[in-house]
């Protein structure tokens, strides 16, 4: 069955303080949806990684938080979007250890491992959109 | 359509006490859920009826999923949930709602009886409405059951894999039976919590009783060892039979950073040495 969205909200991501807020909002949502403590923590951590990328590399953007359902299960989907420089080589960016900004290069790969669904679309010069979902 | 036509809101308003009484009496005489006490039934019926009457006043009779019916849904949800825990059948819960049909039909017949077409319409609307609510109780009921089963399953899994304290600072987790990915995850989480609870420095994961280990399970084992290290405890894996050792090597799972021992006894000895060594030094000066 197709995935349906049952609730949705948007948050700005312009600064490091916004990243903190997004962590808290994601935590509250995950608690509300009945995620286990470990699953909450995984989702909040993934959100933190992607939110920071949006701020640091994407020059800021937004995150859309959606409560989703496929008829049987309930889940949480987060979509990070920016109109920054985009990523030239996606495969490289996804590789653990690759960083262009002095990080550990674990954010993208880690977010992928911490979620059940992962999607990234990026066009050089246009921006980046990363979407993750986790089911309860 | 029903919004303009129905006289139900008016009827409910004028005869509410009488209808409630008839409904309760009917339930007490016929279809009372076995376990539901009379006092409880009266209380539920009164609450439900009040909310139902108010929701009907909104005129929204065709669809109970809207905001006008939120309070009714919530009450039914609670009722179904409590029924799940008390062991009522879904039929009993649904019957509670559906039995309201009879007194309402009676009233409708008295009020609009002369106009056959109107009576048919009204009856149809009431039936549709109560069926929706009845169905809703069943849905909530089933969901409640599912949750209950899942919880019991989880409890059972935790019970079937007890973490034991072998010594001061030393825990052991003897794993027995087939490990699937879900069970391993729960067991491992359990172990990490026990480490925090007991302040153990070393945990021995003994897999002597595990017939086979697949990649996923092996990976969970290793992740647990890594997580325990981050928390400040060391793990030893014992009881790796030759067959499993082969699989692990074949799977290419990296065991290099993990302490492994052939038997639980060997592992225990190492554990005592490790914890004993620091204790020994501390007391001996």
């Amino acid at each position, binding site marked *: 069955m197709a995935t349906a969205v049952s609730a949705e909200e948007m948050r700005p991501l312009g600064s*490091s*303080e916004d*990243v*903190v807020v997004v*962590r*808290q909002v994601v*935590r509250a949502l995950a608690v509300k949806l009945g995620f286990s*403590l*470990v699953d*909450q*923590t*995984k989702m*909040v*951590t993934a959100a*933190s*990684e992607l939110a*920071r990328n949006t701020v640091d590399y994407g020059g800021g953007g937004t995150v859309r938080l959606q409560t989703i359902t496929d008829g049987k299960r309930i889940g949480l989907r987060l979509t990070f979007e920016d109109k920054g420089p985009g990523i030239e080589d996606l495969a490289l960016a996804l590789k*653990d250890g690759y960083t262009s900004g002095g*990080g*550990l290069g*674990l*954010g993208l*790969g*880690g977010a992928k*491992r*911490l979620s059940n669904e992962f999607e990234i679309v990026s066009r050089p010069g246009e921006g980046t959109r990363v979407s993750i979902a986790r089911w309860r | 359509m029903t919004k303009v036509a129905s006289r139900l809101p008016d009827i409910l308003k004028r005869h509410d006490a009488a209808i409630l009484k008839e409904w309760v009496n009917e339930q007490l005489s016929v279809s009372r859920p076995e376990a539901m006490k009379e006092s409880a039934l009266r209380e539920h019926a009164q609450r439900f009826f009040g909310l139902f009457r108010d929701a009907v006043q909104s005129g929204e009779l065709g669809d109970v999923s809207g905001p006008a019916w939120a309070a009714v849904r919530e009450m039914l949800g609670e009722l179904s949930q409590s029924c799940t825990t008390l062991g009522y059948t879904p039929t009993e819960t649904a019957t509670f709602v559906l039995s309201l049909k009879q007194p309402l039909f009676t009233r409708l017949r008295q009020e609009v009886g002369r106009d056959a077409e109107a009576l048919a319409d009204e009856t149809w609307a009431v039936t549709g409405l109560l069926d929706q609510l009845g169905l809703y109780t069943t849905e909530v009921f089933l969901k409640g059951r599912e949750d209950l089963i899942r919880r019991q399953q989880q409890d059972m899994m935790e019970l079937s894999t007890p973490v034991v304290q072998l010594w001061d600072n030393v825990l052991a987790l003897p794993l027995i039976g087939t490990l699937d990915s879900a069970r391993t995850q729960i067991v491992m*989480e359990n172990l*990490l*919590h026990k*480490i*925090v609870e007991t*302040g153990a*420095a070393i945990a021995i994961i003994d897999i002597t009783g595990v017939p086979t280990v697949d990649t996923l399970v092996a990976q969970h084992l290793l*992740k647990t060892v*890594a*997580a*325990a*290290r*981050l*928390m*400040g*405890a060391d793990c030893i894996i014992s009881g790796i039979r030759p067959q499993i050792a082969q699989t692990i090597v074949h799977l290419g799972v990296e065991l290099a950073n993990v302490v492994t021992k052939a038997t639980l006894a060997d592992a225990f000895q190492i554990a005592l040495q490790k914890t004993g060594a*620091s204790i020994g*030094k*501390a007391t001996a*000066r």
Partner: protein
Amino acid sequence: MDRIPILRMSEFLLVTIQVDMHDRLAMALQEDLTDQIVRHRSHGVLIDISTLEVVDSFIGRMIGNIAGMSRILDAETVVVGMRPAVAITLVELGLSLPGVRTALDVDKGMQLLRTSLHGTSNGAS
């Protein structure tokens, strides 16, 4: 700007991270800590993260950096009190904090530091 307090506990420094840190706060902590190690000639740093509900790669990197810088200044770092859910998540993230020592709580962390500095776990204070 707020800062994360650094406590002196006998010969060691203790940092208790309690807030959901934003990046500047984390950077400030690194600076303060290196200052204090030098000023007090400390040989051990305990970072208590028992109240932290999330550790992401940024905080992970900061902890790694603190450990690295401390080592250069001849001090050892012990991270204490990581919660199970956080540990499980960090492993999945791919962060294993190599070269950082860990302990279940502050007491055990102190013991660990004493043992490794003096070869005994109840060293003189």
